[in-house]
């Protein structure tokens, strides 16, 4: 049958799925009865753990239905998060009784019954009648089915042709009849609504916590290795000068003291310069005056020329400004370090409640978001506030990085 050839494999699997419906629906019905028993049993306190077991056990039924839908109906339903218990027997019980995924599987067992009946009836009817009519010339004379049995050869051949038509239609009919089944599997057997969002929030919260810890560690390291070490050296020089000055009546000691104070003075100025760089890295003071002004300073300090175009009618939240600033700083540092670009451009706009940042360079391209790369770190940072980071960087360039952040969080 050339018309059905492209869908033959799929039609076969869908037919199998529809024909398995009585079995699956029957199992579901049986399980429903068990759950009902559990509900009734809660009249007695010992019934409560039994019901809890039933609810969590329904996850197994859901998983079986999900697997079948994937294997035969080609319906990709994401598995819900595994059951998460809480410490303590009472908490465990409460968690099991309130297991949304389990209850949804139970509900699926109930409401899928009409859908299953429909799928089975259509599949069995179309394929069954089709085959019956197709084979009409073989059996019409025995007249086993008087109601539809034809009386003449031409009639029999006509019915046979009708059978062919029915069989051609059957795959499409079955597919249509499976629509409610699929919809129910998708809606009730996947992750509960909000679960995906909660998962994202949990992930980004972990990122935010790690990021904050890493930032503190970096600041501590900078202060320890830089500023504190310099101050110790400075104090040491002054201490030595003090010793020399204790016997200042001897000219060579006075001279040594002067040399030490000179060194200490230089040390103090270098410490101040280092501290300035360090504090600007923690929070650039220009950011208090607004993102545009901070970015102007940043662009001016860049070793390659940066054209800045900023149009911000509305001021974003401070956290968003900070993320946008450090993204730009890191992206421009990447441009200077890796791209070999001669010039770069930064564009900043607001669009439908979003802050859109674009950093472009005319370098050699090939930037990638590998695990552990600076760009991956940036993307993670942006994700913390539900933002997005996109890279277009073909080999040979140019590289365009776009960052979208909500204006307010």
């Amino acid at each position: 049958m050339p018309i059905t050839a492209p869908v033959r494999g799929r039609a076969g699997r869908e037919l199998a799925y529809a024909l398995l419906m009585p079995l699956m629906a029957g199992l579901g019905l049986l399980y429903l009865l068990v759950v009902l028993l559990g509900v009734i049993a809660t009249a007695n306190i010992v019934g409560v753990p039994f019901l809890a077991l039933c609810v969590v056990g329904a996850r197994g039924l859901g998983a079986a239905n999900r697997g079948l839908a994937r294997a035969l109906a080609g319906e990709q339903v994401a598995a819900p998060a595994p059951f998460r218990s809480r410490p303590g027997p009472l908490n465990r019980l409460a968690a099991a009784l309130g297991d949304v995924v389990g209850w949804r599987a139970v509900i699926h067992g109930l409401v899928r019954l009409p859908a299953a009946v429909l799928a089975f009836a259509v599949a069995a009817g179309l394929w069954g009648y089709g085959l019956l009519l197709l084979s009409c010339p073989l059996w019409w004379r025995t007249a086993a089915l008087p109601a539809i049995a034809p009386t003449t050869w031409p009639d029999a051949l006509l019915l046979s042709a009708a059978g062919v038509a029915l069989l051609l239609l059957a795959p499409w009919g079955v597919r249509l009849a499976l629509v409610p089944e699929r919809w129910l599997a998708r809606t009730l057997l996947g992750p509960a609504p909000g679960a995906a969002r909660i998962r994202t929030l949990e992930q980004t919260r972990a990122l935010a916590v790690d990021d904050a810890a890493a930032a503190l560690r970096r600041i501590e390291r900078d202060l320890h290795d830089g500023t504190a070490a310099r101050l110790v050296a400075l104090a040491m020089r002054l201490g030595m000068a003090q010793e020399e000055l204790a016997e200042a009546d001897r000219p060579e000691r006075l001279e040594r003291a002067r040399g030490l104070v000179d060194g200490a003075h230089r040390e103090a100025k270098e410490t101040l310069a280092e501290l300035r760089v360090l504090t600007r890295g923690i929070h650039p003071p220009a950011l208090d005056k607004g993102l545009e002004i901070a970015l102007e300073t940043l662009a001016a300090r860049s070793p390659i020329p940066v054209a800045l175009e900023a149009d911000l009618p509305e001021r974003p939240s401070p956290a968003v400004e900070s993320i946008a600033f450090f993204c730009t700083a890191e992206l421009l540092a990447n441009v200077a370090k890796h791209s070999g670009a001669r010039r770069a451009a930064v564009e900043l706009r607001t669009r439908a409640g979003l802050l859109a940042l674009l950093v472009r360079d005319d370098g050699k391209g090939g930037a990638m978001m590998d695990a552990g790369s600076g760009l991956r770190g940036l993307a993670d940072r942006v994700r913390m506030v539900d933002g997005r980071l996109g890279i277009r960087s073909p080999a040979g360039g140019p590289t365009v990085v776009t960052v979208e952040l909500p204006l307010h969080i």
Partner: protein
Amino acid sequence: MRIVIAEDAVVLRDGLRLLLASRGHEVVAAVGDGEALRACVDEHRPDIAVVDVRMPPSHTDEGLRAAIQVRRDHPDLGVLVFSQYIETRYAAQLLAGGARGVGYLLKERVADVRDFLAALDRIAAGETVLDPEVVTQLMGASRRGDALGALTAREREVLALMAEGRSNSAIAEALFLSYGSVEKHVTQIFTKLGLPPSDGDHRRVLAVLHYLQA
């Protein structure tokens, strides 16, 4: 004295070298990590090693571990561990291998040049020098409360100065006491901490260790 320095911050390394050289000491080597410290102690056999706790590559307790190891390999070597933080655990680890000729000081103590150099001399002479901060932390630790509870306020002061490695006469001077009454306090401390009579100096170290060991 012949001294090696292990310190990764260049400003401090150079500053220490200048300081020690100006006081007639010979800085035979100045290195930036624990591995190099072990190598140069093996090579130069110095009298004292001045070692920073936090050094590359791990930037955690590299220097401390190197210091413990060089002391094991060279029991006569004096070691001054210095650091920007005082961790009592580090002090305990350092002293676990014997307290003779060991010091643990905050880096900022180097600002008081005379005290710092005196500490080096004491370490070279086999004494133990602990930063006052170590003692403060130990005294403040609540888990030691019961043991310390037996000591009077005055005895604690004496113990604190003992932990810094001071002699009885130095303690007497610092607390404006007579030499005799310091001796009496020290004996009281030994008795209350249950330290057996033995060589006096050794008992002083034990009294301090008593608080360092959990």
